[in-house]
């Protein structure tokens, strides 16, 4: 597990906790929850940029490269989809949808780490 994973671990868990708490408090998606998901997206972008740099500088991915990039591309789409959804229906339930992003990103980052090493 590398630093990218731990960044996503922390940011993803924080985002999930914030969104679940907001959902339990019966709040509609607000700046806090949407920004927390945006932070997950940002940390995934950091992972993407870091991975591109590492591959460009000659590092080899141990597993299937296309599997790694597939995971990363899908993970990058999740926060965007969830936020889009949360904007379409502004109820407390959308906060639980947003909460799912952090955990999912975390699981996918763990899998990406396994593929890389």
């Amino acid at each position, binding site marked *: 597990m590398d630093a990218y994973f731990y960044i996503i671990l922390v940011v993803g868990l924080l985002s999930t906790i914030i969104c679940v708490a907001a959902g339990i408090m019966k709040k509609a998606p607000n700046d806090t929850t949407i920004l927390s998901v945006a932070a997950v997206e940002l940390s995934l972008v950091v992972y993407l940029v870091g991975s591109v740099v590492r591959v460009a500088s000659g590092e080899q991915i141990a597993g299937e490269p296309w599997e790694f990039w597939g995971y990363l591309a899908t993970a990058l789409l999740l926060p965007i989809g969830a936020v889009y959804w949360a904007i*379409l229906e502004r*109820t407390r*339930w959308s906060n639980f*949808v947003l909460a799912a992003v952090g955990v999912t990103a975390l699981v996918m980052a763990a899998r990406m780490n396994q593929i890389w090493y």
Partner: protein
Amino acid sequence: MEEAENVSAKSSQDGTGTPAVSSPMTGPGEAGLPGARSTEAGTADTAPADTAAAPANTRNTGPGRLLIAVYAVFAISATARAGYQILTKFSEAPLAYLLSAFAAVVYVVATVSLAKPGRTAFKVSVVAVLVELVGVLVVGALSVFDSVNFPHETVWSLFGRGYGFIPLLLPILGLIWLYRRRPAPLKA
């Protein structure tokens, strides 16, 4: 894409101006029930756009959205995983990987039918979720008791342990949700 379809379908729900239901029998309350499904989203243009009056499809709002979102994540991951397994190592365990593909199809069907309004979509959802429940129970049990013949991973192996038992929980929650939001019986 799907969202836009939902929205347009939803608005067409409200004006169920089909000849069958425009009889005096149907009060304003029944008009918007999910069962009264218009054939095409395009009929929304001819129907009166009265969005505030009757609740249209209620299966894809509130907790239903969360359910659809989780199903969508499973549909994507199961499809990707099955595709990967079949493309790279199908000969190792054809049965397990075909099961993976089957599970992926079930998740895709469940996701789409849960998101769609209408009576037909409701029935499709019930069937898909039931198949999912049977699948996770049977494959889960087989992977526990007959681990020699089921050594290869599928989404449903060991009752979905590799996925935090969500595959086991999901159809149960899905059935509860579908029961609570079942369409009203058809009026003659």
